[in-house]
């Protein structure tokens, strides 16, 4: 029921409003307004005989063109907050298949958004492509950057290609690019990046905005060869649940580089049960 701040002025801090929604991020004297929401695009359906009738499927992302539907309705969910000496986190449940935890570790200069999406319901016979969208006040002027298979960052310009005159008929998917590990927007004052824990599609469809596709469940084949709808199931036909993490950074490209290395080659955990022996014996 109250605004809360995760982190402190020495590192990246996030302000979460009374409904569990992100409202601002700051790092030292830098600050941006930050809003984050989860939406879905309805997948296009057609008979695949002509390009315009192509269904959204495993190979292509093809939304119907309508505005995405909001899933993270903050007024309907539940919000729990935990603070301790190591980590502060806010757990938000939006519905029975959409939830997330926003987490800030004490000594770290990044924030985590741990999203859990699925099983995506299809009782309405609509294929859904779920995105997480971050809105900032950064004046990115149509430009955003995505990594090239984890190597250099490539400049992308909305509705533009560097080597030909573009007539873009699909304004959403035509501006999507692969994001293997990072997507960035910036202006004169700030740089905001989202690092991913796996390859995703992403874009910046408006200035100051970053969106990443985190899960898809579609009901029609796109006729590009797989011959099946992208409708993965497990556990007796229930749709898959995807659980993953976005790492948010503000300002420091050098910190981003080490963070990317840490997450790409994350530490490994091994466990050894030690029944009936003490620490001294183990040591």
């Amino acid at each position: 029921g109250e605004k809360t701040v995760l982190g402190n002025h020495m590192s990246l801090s996030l302000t979460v409003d009374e409904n569990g929604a992100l409202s601002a991020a700051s790092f030292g004297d830098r600050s941006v307004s930050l809003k984050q929401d989860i939406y879905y695009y309805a997948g296009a359906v057609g008979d695949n005989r002509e390009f315009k009738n192509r269904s959204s499927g495993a190979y292509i992302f093809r939304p119907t063109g309508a505005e995405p539907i909001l899933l993270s309705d903050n007024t309907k969910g539940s919000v729990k907050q935990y603070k301790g000496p190591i980590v502060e986190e806010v757990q938000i449940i939006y519905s029975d298949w959409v939830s997330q935890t926003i987490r800030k570790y004490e000594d770290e200069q990044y924030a985590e958004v741990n999203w859990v999406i699925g099983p995506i319901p299809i009782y309405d016979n609509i294929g859904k492509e779920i995105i997480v969208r971050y809105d900032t006040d950064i004046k990115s002027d149509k430009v955003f950057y995505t990594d090239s298979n984890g190597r250099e960052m490539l400049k992308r310009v909305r509705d533009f290609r560097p080597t030909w005159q573009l007539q873009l008929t699909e304004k959403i998917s035509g501006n999507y690019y692969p994001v293997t590990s990072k997507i960035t927007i910036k202006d004169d004052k700030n740089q905001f990046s989202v690092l991913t824990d796996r390859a995703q599609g992403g874009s910046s469809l408006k200035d100051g905005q970053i969106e990443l596709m985190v899960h898809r469940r579609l009901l029609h084949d796109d006729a590009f060869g797989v011959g099946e709808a992208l409708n993965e199931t497990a556990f007796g036909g229930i749709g898959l649940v995807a659980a993953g993490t976005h790492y948010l950074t503000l300002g420091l490209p050098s910190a981003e580089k080490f963070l990317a290395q840490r997450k790409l080659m994350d530490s490994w955990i091994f466990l050894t049960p030690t029944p009936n022996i003490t620490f001294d014996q183990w040591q």
Partner: protein
Amino acid sequence: RGDLNALRSAMGVLQHHDAITGTEKQLVAFDYARILSEGIAQCELVVDAALRKIITQKKAAKDGESKLDDQFQTVTCPLLNISQCATTEDNKAFVVTVYNPLSKPVTHYVRLPVKDNLNYTVLCPMGKKQVTQLIPISDGVKRIPGRASKAGYELVFRAKNLPPLGFRSYYVSQNAKTDEDSAFAATQDNYVL
């Protein structure tokens, strides 16, 4: 003896774009998961053998024994991403070994699913208590279909300054039941590498 090539081979097969983008048929997706899982299981044996060898050498040097008890079987928990791990949920004492594959020191935040809000002690190799925190697992994770876990909490601690391309082991033990406040209370961390 584990076979490193099982995981090498799996990773080679999974270079195909189908395995990255999801453009494979569902039965192929299941098969990719199978060969990857089998590869990881083989490497688990390799890690267990490697740790056993290192520990045995130290133990042999110390007291002349050369064989580590078979009860100390090192395993991985591939379902930690959904806060599920039989080893941490069912044992009152266990050792967590954290390996750093990078060539520089890193700090890793270890999160381990545990059953109850008990008081846990985490000791570094020098025997110093580590700062710990217990956090309830999110309901969003608990209700994931197929998740079969008794864990209601995650035990969090900081594995600080892990050596480059090296590992450090922490001894975790469960203490008597206490109220939530004392479980959250931090112990002083004085350990410096």
